[in-house]
Structure formats: structure tokens, C-alpha cells
């Protein structure tokens, strides 16, 4: 038997789950409550993890003898000048360091991993000396890749005029097929997530004492909350 704290935890998690799902049917006050809890929890958790990193990593390095970290702490605090109407520009300096790191790390590897490596892999595809089916598949692959790259060329309008329009059509067909595949995979992902919540409700919450009684009560309250205030049988509103 789970201890009391765990039981409370399960009840809370279960109620939040039901309240959030209610939005699929209609907006209501329980959803609003759960949603505000969600936004608050996300912001709170993120802040707490930030503090954890500052203490565990930054402070750890500092007391480990890396005194230069004091500069980082100062820069970090300066980030918050963005909320000041006159001195907001001070936050640009630490932010510039962050942006510079991001841009530098991205540029130096994107050129290889998303550009050259992709070109290299396409260029190495064999059309001769392989079995017919592989050759056909490779040919389809090459045609779609080339035509999609071609499709996204915008400033040479002549490249899309006349008979050349066929290339864009092929590209579009290729992309639509890809989107169909992605769509099906998204269904799988979302359903897996729903399964996770339903599984929690059915195998963790409902076996607890009173949960079977609480479920219909919660649902009735929800349906009630979905009815617009003026049409509710009780309590009667003035307006």
C-alpha cells in the first residue's frame, strides 16, 4: 500500500489529467485552473533548474578556484536589466555572448552535417551496378531530392517557367508524400501519449480507494462547468 503522500500525489495528477482533457470538449473553469497550474509549474521548474545549474556548476567552479566565474555571475545579473526602461541596453552585452556562442556552434557544424554530408550521401548513390529495384529506388530518391532543392529556388523565376514547372510539381508530390508519412507518425506519438495518461488513470489511480466514486463526480462537475453560467440550473445568476 502506497504511503499517504503518494496517494495525494496520484489523486492530484489524476484530477489534473481529467481537467486538461476537458478542453477537447469545451472551455471550463477546471481547465483554466489546471492550465494556470501548468504554466506556473513550467516557469517555476525552469527557474529552479536554472538556480540548480548556477549553484552546482557555476558556484562549484568558483569555489573550486576558478575565480574568473565572478565575471559570469555579474554578466548573468546584468541580463535582468532588460526589464528596466532606461538601462535595458546593458543586457545586450551578456546576451551578445550567448548569441555569439549559439551562432558559432551552429555555423561551424551545420555546413558539414546538414549541407555537405547530405550532398555527399546523395552524390554517392549508385544507379549502375546494383539490382533493378535498388537502382529504381535510388533514382526516385535522387529525383525527389534534387527537385525539392530546386523547388526552393525563388529568385530565378525563369527556372520555374514553361516546361520546367514539372520539376516543382514532382517536388510537391514528393513533399506531400513525406507529409502524409509524418502525419501518420504524429498520430502514433499523440496516441502513445494519451495511452500513457489513460494507463495512469486506469492502473494507478482507479484502483485506489474511493477513486471509482470520485471519477463520475469529477465528470459531472466538469460537464456542469462547461454549461455557460446563465444557462445553469443552479446557482441562478443575476444577469
Amino acid at each position, binding site marked *: 500500500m502506497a504511503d499517504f503522500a503518494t496517494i495525494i500525489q496520484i489523486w492530484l495528477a489524476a484530477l489534473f489529467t481529467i481537467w486538461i482533457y476537458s478542453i*477537447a*470538449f469545451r472551455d471550463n473553469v477546471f481547465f483554466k485552473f489546471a492550465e494556470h497550474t501548468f504554466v506556473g509549474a513550467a516557469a517555476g*521548474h*525552469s527557474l529552479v*533548474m*536554472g538556480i*540548480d*545549474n548556477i549553484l*552546482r*556548476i557555476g558556484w*562549484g*567552479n568558483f569555489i*573550486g578556484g576558478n575565480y574568473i566565474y565572478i565575471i559570469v555571475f555579474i554578466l548573468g545579473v546584468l541580463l535582468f536589466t532588460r526589464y528596466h526602461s532606461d538601462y535595458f541596453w546593458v543586457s545586450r552585452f551578456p546576451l551578445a555572448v550567448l548569441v555569439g*556562442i*549559439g551562432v558559432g*556552434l*551552429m555555423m561551424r*557544424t*551545420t555546413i*558539414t*552535417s*546538414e549541407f555537405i*554530408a*547530405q550532398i*555527399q*550521401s546523395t552524390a554517392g548513390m549508385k544507379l549502375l551496378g546494383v539490382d533493378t529495384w535498388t537502382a529504381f529506388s535510388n533514382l526516385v530518391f535522387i529525383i525527389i531530392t534534387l527537385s525539392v532543392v530546386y523547388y526552393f529556388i525563388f529568385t530565378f523565376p525563369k527556372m520555374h517557367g514553361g516546361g520546367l514547372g514539372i520539376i516543382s510539381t514532382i517536388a510537391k508530390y514528393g513533399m506531400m508524400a*513525406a507529409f502524409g*508519412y*509524418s502525419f501518420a*507518425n*504524429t*498520430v*502514433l*506519438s*499523440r*496516441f*502513445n*501519449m*494519451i*495511452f*500513457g*495518461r*489513460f*494507463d495512469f488513470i*486506469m492502473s494507478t489511480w482507479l484502483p485506489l480507494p474511493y477513486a471509482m466514486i470520485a471519477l463520475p463526480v469529477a465528470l459531472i462537475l466538469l460537464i456542469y462547468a462547461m454549461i455557460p453560467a446563465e444557462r445553469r440550473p443552479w446557482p441562478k445568476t443575476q444577469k
Partner: protein
Amino acid sequence: MGKESKTIWDRLEDIPREVLYGILIISFIMPMLFPIGFPVPISPEVKRWYDTIDKLPNGSVIMVDFGYSGGGEPELGPMAVAVYHHIFKKGGIKVVAMSTSNEGTLLFDKAMAELNPSQYGKQYGVDYIHIGYITGTESAMAAVGKDIRATTTTDYKGTPLAQYSIMDGVNEAKDFALLICYTTGGDQSEGWVRQWYTTYQTPYLCCVLAMMVPTMLPYQKAGQIVSLTSGAQAGQMELLVHVPARGIKSADVITITHLLCIALVVVGNIAYFGKKFSGGKQ
């Protein structure tokens, strides 16, 4: 068009969403109440993932990124657990984990509770460890790849790394034989390709939400990812490792709900074409 002119096709197309959602909920609940135990075929990516870990030499150290958020836990958690089962069963491999998602350490605890490493005689700090959530996503990957201790000197609980024997001689990306990432974010799954594979050529196994698989496919095709799987394939991994758990449990539900989707597409299109051919314009 008045209400009276509604044809059967119109009615079919306009089924209220509450009805659709109701059917969906029922198709989730029924197979959970009455499990059928549908078979699950193993796909080549999962087999390739399994083989990659199986072939790791004794004494290898691997890096695992718990880069997913709570939202993706139902999908990615079972996969992470099944793979840990495999690694611990095989033995002789040290697992260093980190997180690029701020919920990663909490989800790591959850996974370890489900896994129970002590059943394999594995000890925290000796056979596996978690060096914590490190902010910055790609900056974190780059920093850890260059020099772990310059980035963090403690594990996720704040205990100095020096106290753990697993960290002896483990300093940078080059010390790792394999990289595994479970993630709900494209920044993570793609970031590892850029910051570790491109820079250090570390073999990379990547497990993402099924919806992210298509955008990651070109990396696998170009050889930058050894095996790309979705968390939805966790059931297959559980079968290979012989530890049936949450992943396999979802197989029935996923089958029924997907059949429902196919049925909905078919009915929807019948309504559409029915309307079209019966002169829906009126």
C-alpha cells in the same frame, strides 16, 4: 441551405466532434480493460540498435542523454528503460547519463525506479551515473564533449565526480564508445549530430517521438545516425530484451485506435465523394 436540405452525406461529414472524441476514448479504454495481446513484429532499426549495443566491447563507456520532457515520457520512458535493461544484462558497460532537458534528472529517477538496477547487481557511481541537467542544449553538448570536468564537477545530486569510480579516465567525447539520446526536441536530436558526430565521429543512436522521425531520416541515410527509432517502438525493444513492460502493453491500444483512424478516413472520404457524386451543390 436550410436544415431540411441536409443529405445523408452532409450529416455524415458533420458528425459532432464530441461523438468522434467519445468513440476515440472508448477505443482507448476497451483494449485496456480486455487485453488481446496482439503480436508485435521487430523492425530493422530496432534490431540494428540492439546489435550495436550487443557488439560493444567489454569496458566501453557510453553517454546517454535524457533529453526528453515529461510530455514525451509515455513514449520515450519505456524505450530508455528497455535499453538500460539490455545494457545491464549484457554487463561490462559503464553508462554516464546527462540531460539536455530540464526535466531529465527527474525522469532519470523515474526510469531507474522502474528499472531497479540492483537486480543486475549494478551500483550508482560504479556502473552508472547521471552528471545532471546542463543548460544551453548545443552549448552543453559541445562543452561536455570538450571537457566534462571543466563543465561540471558534480553529479546531479551535487556530489563531486571525483568520488565516483565510474568517472576515472572519462574526460571528453573521445572517451565514449557510443552516444544514445532520447528526446522530444529537435534541438537535441539534431544538436548531437552537429556537436558530437560531426566533431568527434561518436557512433550515435537516436530515439525520438514518432512524429520527429521523418525530419531526422536524412541524418540516418547519410550515416550520421547508426539507428533512428521512435519511442513507440519500445515494445519491440522489450521483446528483444525479454522484459515486457509498458511498451508492449500499448500494442493493443495502438492497434485498435489506428484501425479507428483508418476507418474514419475511409468513412470521411465516402461522405465526401458521396456528396460530390450525388450533386452536393444542390
